[in-house]
């Protein structure tokens, strides 16, 4: 795997007509190690980081206050009502979990496809996955109304003599999301072990040596260890690939198993998975562009990385557009009154402006990525990725709220208006997410150092290392005794 990666990198830099290299010129083992580790091991903290962390932390406090109030008063503080029983809570859940998917896609699927450009973005994309899943998990856990009883969702022998209903997609969700969170954490930690050893060996203060040393588990870079490590890492990637596809499929089952018009569609699983990757890459760009600028990481996160991510967004965005088109087609082709009404209500009903904003953000604006000039411009990429972040949130609003608010019984028809606590909870989780991201880039290497070492020209083995064992440079009979001193 590593070999293939470094060969790709090498070929890329040698071929004049090939794609540009995935690492800036002139880097060595020492320089990549120094550059990435020094961000973590520097003494003192940059002012910009402090300001960003402080603001995010305030957002997190807002979330904690909202949760406290919610636990006291109940979910009546939100705008949900009996017709629109799922609103911001589930919108935000799906939005966050979708964002997480790009991290696994980059770390697992692109690894299996031997895309060497993933190396410099996989670590922080994986961190993004973990933190996004943490934010996502909060919403359904709080939406149960009595979050202190959430452990009832897990199957365990209890005095009530009851078991969960495994035929319910909500149970599948519990298993899918908790498995996803666990496997993502394992994958992330495994990837960190060799870099933690680097930090342990490079740290000068005693306390850092001890903490990084404990986390590194005593990693010493033995080639036997590396061999097992590579096997385990590759197998984890192979396991994560179907896992990530299954998670958003199961999230889409929450809707498509139900009979609500606008939810009950077989297109949902692929369309949700594509939407998740779309949203996730947008978030990687949203975070990656400022981080790269602030820490001067242009040599590692090159324009080629940004361009590739833009292309993935364009492709997945078109799949999402196909999903929207199919929803319209089914509404007409099914000849079902309720489906037809659902589509008419989406496009021209009371929430028409949300639908058309969604089309603007998710379908219209991203078409700018066809133009090379915009794919090359970090400012434009950042702006477009922000549009997609907003668009994907609106998509879930359209799916959830506009489908629910026109029930089968016209007497139940109502409007949904979010309250201030819906917003403090939502923006609070953004603060929580950014707080975790800020802590991560301060205390852990945000780019995989050991994988970057495999990309530098020094890592290419010269031909004598590949010499056939049949023609040894030194006769085996010679042994240590006869070797020249």
């Amino acid at each position, binding site marked *: 795997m*590593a*070999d293939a990666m470094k060969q790709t990198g090498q070929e890329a830099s040698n071929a004049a007509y090939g794609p540009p290299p995935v690492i800036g010129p002139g880097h060595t083992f020492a320089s990549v190690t120094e550059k990435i580790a020094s961000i973590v091991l520097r003494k003192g903290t940059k002012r910009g980081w402090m300001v960003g962390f402080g603001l995010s932390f305030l957002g997190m406090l807002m979330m904690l206050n909202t949760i406290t109030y919610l636990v006291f008063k109940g979910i009546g503080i939100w705008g949900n009502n009996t017709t629109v029983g799922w609103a911001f809570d589930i919108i935000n859940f799906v939005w966050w979990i979708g964002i997480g998917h790009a991290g696994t896609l980059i770390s697992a699927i692109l690894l299996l496809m031997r895309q060497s450009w993933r190396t410099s973005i996989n670590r922080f994309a994986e961190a993004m996955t973990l933190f996004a899943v943490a934010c996502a998990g909060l919403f359904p856990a709080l939406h149960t109304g009595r979050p202190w009883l959430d452990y009832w969702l897990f199957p365990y022998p209890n005095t009530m003599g009851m078991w969960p209903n495994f035929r319910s997609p909500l149970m*599948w969700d519990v298993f899918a999301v908790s498995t996803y969170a666990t496997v993502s954490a394992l994958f992330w930690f495994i990837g960190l072990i060799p870099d933690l050893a680097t930090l342990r060996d490079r740290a000068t203060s005693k306390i850092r040596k001890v903490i990084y040393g404990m986390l590194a588990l*005593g990693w*010493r870079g033995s080639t036997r260890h590396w061999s097992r490590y590579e096997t385990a890492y590759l197998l*984890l990637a192979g396991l994560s690939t179907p896992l990530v596809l299954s998670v958003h499929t199961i999230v889409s089952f929450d809707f498509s198993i139900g009979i609500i018009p606008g939810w009950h569609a077989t297109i949902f699983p692929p369309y949700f998975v594509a939407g998740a990757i779309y949203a996730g890459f947008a978030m990687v760009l949203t975070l990656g562009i400022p981080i790269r600028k602030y820490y001067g990481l242009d040599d590692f996160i090159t324009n080629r990385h940004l361009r590739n991510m833009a292309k993935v967004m364009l492709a997945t965005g078109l799949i999402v557009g196909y999903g929207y088109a199919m929803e319209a087609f089914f509404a007409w082709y099914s000849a079902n009154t309720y489906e037809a009404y659902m589509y008419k209500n989406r496009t021209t009903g009371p929430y028409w402006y949300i639908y058309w904003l969604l089309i603007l953000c998710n379908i219209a604006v991203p078409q700018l990525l066809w133009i090379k000039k915009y794919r090359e411009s970090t400012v434009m990429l950042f702006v477009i990725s922000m549009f997609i972040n907003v668009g994907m949130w609106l998509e879930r609003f359209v799916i959830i709220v506009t489908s629910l608010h026109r029930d089968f019984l016209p007497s139940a028809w109502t409007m949904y208006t979010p309250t201030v606590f819906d917003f403090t909870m939502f923006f609070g989780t953004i603060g929580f997410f950014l707080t975790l991201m800020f802590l991560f880039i301060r205390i852990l290497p945000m780019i995989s150092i050991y994988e970057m070492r495999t990309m530098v020209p*020094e890592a290419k083995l010269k031909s004598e290392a590949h010499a056939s064992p049949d023609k*040894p440079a030194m006769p085996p009979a010679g042994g240590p*005794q006869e070797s020249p001193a």
Partner: protein
Amino acid sequence: MNVNKESNIYGLMAEFDNPTAVVVAAKKAHEAGYRKMDAYSPYPIEELSEAIGFHSNRVPLIVLVGGLAGLFAGLGLQIWTSAIEYPLNVGGRPLISWPAFVPVTFEMTVLLAAFGAVLGMILLNGLPRPYHPVFNAPRFELASRTHFFLCIEAEDAKFDLGETRKFLESLGANEVTDVEK
């Protein structure tokens, strides 16, 4: 004196500054008949583990066992709770409604297989192990950054402090040092 010193030696550590040198050295050491040795590098080098004669590992087997355990545990849990312990008759539909059990079975399979991969790798590697004699080698902290090391251990049948040192020096090592236990 010499015997005492040798009994306190874990092995001889040779330092190299490029990956090709360490792979070539490891190959020659293997050809010379040394078996109890290990190489240390700041990133994975497939050729290096091949060179010291380490060809396969048992991580995939543990992953398979973990995955199968998850598969049967997940399916078994659902069948037992839904059909035996707490049967719910919904309009006379079958109690073992296996298509509805696929998602949880799949997730359990992946979960236990992933634990198999991670714990299998960590435990087979003998980690966590905060102390190891090789850390006593001077400059060994570079093994996690820029340099490559080959250690021939004293337990090897062919190990001889003087001769092995000469042999390692002949391989183009920057420096050869004793590693104390």
